[in-house]
């Protein structure tokens, strides 16, 4: 209780100014906050504001809805008909809390959220080849989440990663952005801090307080990462490039030295053979044959088969003059071809600076430290807002990854109460999920969002569309198809085998970047056509001896029983009286039991409820 009252005041102060309350934060952070107490506090804060605005929250949802919603949100699965029956009949007053705990301890929890993060990282990738490691990333993230690693440690690993993308899949974000400093900085900032800085890449941010050079100071933490091809086909690694000049750039930086170094016969010129001979000792790594050919093609203007320092100097400036440099340069907008202005790393939130000339390891350790610091309010706020939005259908800030300093949160004290509790529990994501799921706000019925633009959310849960993996899990579960069976899968291996997995192909059709506001996700025609007409579903929808539907019909001679089972299977609830009437009439009109049930199951699978959170 003491803890609770203290949040209230500190939470409020935090929203006004972060710096002032830093000391208070640190003191408070040491006592891990209790999940139920924080949930109650969040509810109280939200209710107070709702009542102030004259909004009445809707009722608590029923057990079947809660079971389906929570199971999908935490483990990505649809509860089985048996789960629904047992949960509904369980007299335990704390059964919702017990369920949440069970789901959090299931390995499916980590798997489900690993897939969520896979989409967050890879959907906006500018380097598509990064996807070769996405299965490894999923496994890595699932392990981290299931083992209870703190979010600060997970993010630190992702920001400081090096090595082969398969062996070190925590390189995911770096490789997805091609290890380009500005892109990595923008994405890391957006995903982990909820702040969109990339507009400041080219100009001072039009609506935020950040300046262009602050964005480039953030990028200056990342100039020494490089993507390199490894010996395996289609394999890459993230490397630190601390040796001054990456491969291939040495010759441009220091033409005289380059010529001296390679010129074996002392004629003041370098031939290809000479370059090849010295390749092993070349500073910054050897230049591959293809690049060597290109250098000669561009540089050897008199076509004598040899390069002079003069020829190198007169070569056109490559289009990525700044790439491969060990320092970050802010492009000169008036002269984009020039090298630009040297920028040192500095963290825009607190203006802290790690110093100059740091190694890649030093820079990225520093940026990870700054990102995940308890003094950086954006770090906890971003993940709280993101996970809250996934559960409730809408965030405190919308869009979830654009919280910026000039945006205002709805219920700012509630998000800060969650953020503080999360930090005091060592950035434990399970704690956060548990707390959110325990709020009465989450346990309300679904209702359409208010139409008015400034209306407060969270008087009800928004019925949003399920993510692709959740629809895939639901479909396979309902139809009784085993994802790991070899059915419909080819035996070809190779680095792109993952693209032939049924889940990958399904995600390809149904996948949406999870950072996109749920309002904007309505499905599309190809998805709808898939559910209506795909051959993959057709067989499983047939009422014969081999299918779930056939079994339901065999085991339930009375239509009410059969309909009950069908609804439990597909929608994880009993049908209403009205629905039973519609179905009974339909069965009678069609006249053929099997055919009528095939149509019923088809309709339920094509219904909006099957695809939505309820």
């Amino acid at each position, binding site marked *: 209780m003491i803890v609770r009252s203290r949040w209230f005041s500190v939470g409020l102060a935090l929203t006004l100014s972060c710096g002032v309350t830093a000391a208070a934060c640190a003191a408070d952070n040491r006592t891990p906050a209790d999940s139920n107490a924080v949930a109650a506090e969040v509810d109280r804060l939200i209710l107070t504001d709702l009542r102030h605005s004259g909004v009445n929250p809707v009722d608590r949802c029923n057990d079947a809805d809660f079971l389906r919603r929570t199971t999908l949100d935490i483990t990505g699965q649809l509860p089985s008909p048996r789960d629904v029956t047992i949960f509904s009949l369980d007299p335990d007053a704390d059964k919702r809390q017990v369920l949440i705990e069970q789901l959090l301890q299931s390995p499916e929890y980590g798997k489900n959220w690993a897939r969520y993060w896979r989409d967050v990282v890879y959907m*906006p990738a*500018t380097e*598509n080849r990064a996807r070769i490691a996405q299965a490894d990333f999923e496994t890595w993230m699932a392990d981290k989440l299931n083992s209870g690693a703190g979010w600060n440690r997970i993010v630190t690993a992702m920001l400081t990663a090096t090595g082969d993308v398969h062996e070190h899949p925590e390189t995911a974000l770096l490789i*997805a*952005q091609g290890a380009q400093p500005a*892109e990595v900085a*923008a*994405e890391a900032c*957006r995903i982990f801090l909820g702040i*969109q800085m*990339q*507009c400041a890449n080219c100009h001072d941010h039009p*609506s935020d307080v950040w300046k262009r050079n602050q964005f480039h100071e953030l990028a200056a933490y990342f100039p020494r990462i490089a993507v390199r091809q490894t010996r395996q086909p289609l394999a890459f690694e993230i490397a630190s490039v601390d040796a001054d000049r990456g491969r291939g750039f040495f010759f441009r930086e220091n033409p005289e030295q380059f010529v001296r170094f390679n010129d074996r016969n002392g004629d003041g010129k370098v031939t290809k053979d000479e370059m090849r001979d010295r390749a092993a000792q070349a500073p910054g790594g050897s230049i591959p044959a*293809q690049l060597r*050919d*290109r250098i000669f*093609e561009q540089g050897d203007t008199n076509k004598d088969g040899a390069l002079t320092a003069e020829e190198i100097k007169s070569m056109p400036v490559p*289009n*990525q003059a700044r790439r491969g440099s060990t320092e970050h340069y802010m492009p000169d907008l008036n002269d984009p071809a020039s090298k630009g202005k040297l920028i040192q790393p500095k963290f825009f939130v607190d203006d802290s600076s790690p110093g100059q000339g740091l190694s890649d390891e030093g820079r990225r350790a520093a940026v990870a430290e700054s990102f995940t610091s308890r003094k950086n309010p954006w770090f906890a706020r971003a993940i709280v807002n993101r996970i809250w939005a996934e559960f409730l259908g809408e965030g405190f800030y*919308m869009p979830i990854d*654009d919280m910026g300093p000039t945006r205002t949160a709805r219920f700012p004290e509630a998000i800060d109460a969650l953020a503080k509790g999360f930090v005091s529990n060592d950035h434990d994501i399970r704690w956060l999920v548990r707390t959110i799921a325990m709020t009465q706000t989450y346990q309300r*019925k*679904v*209702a*359409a969002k208010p139409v008015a*633009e400034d209306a407060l959310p969270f008087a*009800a849960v928004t*019925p949003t569309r399920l993510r692709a993996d959740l629809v895939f899990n639901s479909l396979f579960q309902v139809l009784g198809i085993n994802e790991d069976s070899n059915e419909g899968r080819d035996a070809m291996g190779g680095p792109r085998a993952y*693209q032939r997995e049924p889940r990958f*192909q399904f995600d*390809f059709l149904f996948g949406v970047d999870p950072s996109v506001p749920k*309002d*904007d996700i*309505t*499905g*599309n*025609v*190809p998805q*709808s*056509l898939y559910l*209506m*007409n*795909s051959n993959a579903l*057709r067989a499983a929808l047939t009422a014969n001896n081999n299918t779930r539907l056939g079994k339901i019909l065999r085991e339930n001679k009375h239509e009410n029983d059969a309909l009950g089972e069908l609804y439990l299977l597909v929608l994880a609830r009993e049908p*209403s009286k*009205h*629905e039973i009437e*519609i179905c009974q009439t*339909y069965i009678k009109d069609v006249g053929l039991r099997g*055919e009528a049930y095939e*149509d019923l199951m*088809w*309709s*339920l699978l*094509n*219904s*909006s*409820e099957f695809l*939505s959170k*309820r």
Partner: protein
Amino acid sequence: MSAFSWHEDVTLHRQSVSRRGFLYGTSAAAAAGAFNFHDVMSAQAADLRKQGRAMILLFMQGGPSQLETFDPKPGTDSGGPTKAISTAAPGIQIAEGWEETAKQMQDIAVIRSMTNKEGQHDRAVYQMHTGYIPSGSIKHPALGCNLAHELSHAERELPAVVSIGNGRAAGIGGSGAGFLGVDYEPFHVANPGKLPENVAMTVNESRFKRRLGLLDKLEGEFASQGGATVVENHRRITDKSSKLVLSPLTKTFDLSHESAATRESYGNTDFGRGCLLARRLVESGVTFVEVRLGNWDTHQDNFDAVKGLARQCDPALAALIADLKQRGLFDKTLIVWTGEFGRTPRVNPRTGRDHWPRNFNALLAGGGVKGGQVIGETSKDGTSLVKDPVSVPDLFCSICKSLEVNPSKENMSPLGRPMKIVDGGKPVDGLFA
């Protein structure tokens, strides 16, 4: 329910966009259902001429060699063994292997001075589709989707944008609708000549309709339990899909309606069938069609490989021009042939050519473009541009000019950043008579 429209769920975007205090362009407001079809047509009466305009992009994925296509350098080291042939346009020579295209040269403008900086496939493909370099924070709409956003009718049974070819690689970088949303997302046809995936019903038509009726009734429960908005959105998309499934226009995808001679002229290849389908789609009102031909990344055995590719591309390209002309569609349909970059003038030790964005080719035909001319010139050895460089934005502005779309029109990105259809550039004036 009003007539079938692919635009309807723009309304869904509108809410979130306007919540952030920004407005979509006026055409989106019209498309969003603020007016009915008749109103839209009268409101845009002045622009009616635009409505018949369409574009077909023939995209040579991998980066076609300019030296083995439309900028041959016979008798030089760069040129390799490739010979040049004369064309129907006096003074214009192209590479051997393109004999059918040569016959149509009076209707083709060759740009030999395309120039760019991106030498990496993904990034260059993205740029050649969107006009922008890739960025993690924003998915730019492809030019084709922008054109459809500007030009396509709100009322239509077929999608506004169709992409054909390349099997499962449906979404090559930058070919999507980006922030324009699902209404302008390309509809993918993996195997031209067959119905697209999942368009064919798995039960007979009367049972399909019966199922739709049942679905509609069963949706009532969720609608009454708080899901009304979701149910309504879902119903719109189900309507669109089922109307496509039941539409007589799906026969557009069936090439057996064409005469044997016509099919023959395009060539018995997937690319040929793709081009024939493109013509049928444009005829049925589709605004933008992309047909892709892959395997142009000829790091090895460039000369043999390009010969094989030309055998697929040459007859199809020529037939497409002739066919559109014969059907009176040529003047309003712009054909653009290009790839993501060119290839090195120097032949590498594996008789291949490597990536070369400095100068490469594009062909434009139809859509008011003056044929029988060459834009730009490269040096004797093909390693540099001698005159009239054409940047990617220049090419895009030229396309916009042909289609009578304002390239400076701004659409709002989700973050409220206005994005021009084309950023910079200017049309190549000589292209138009």
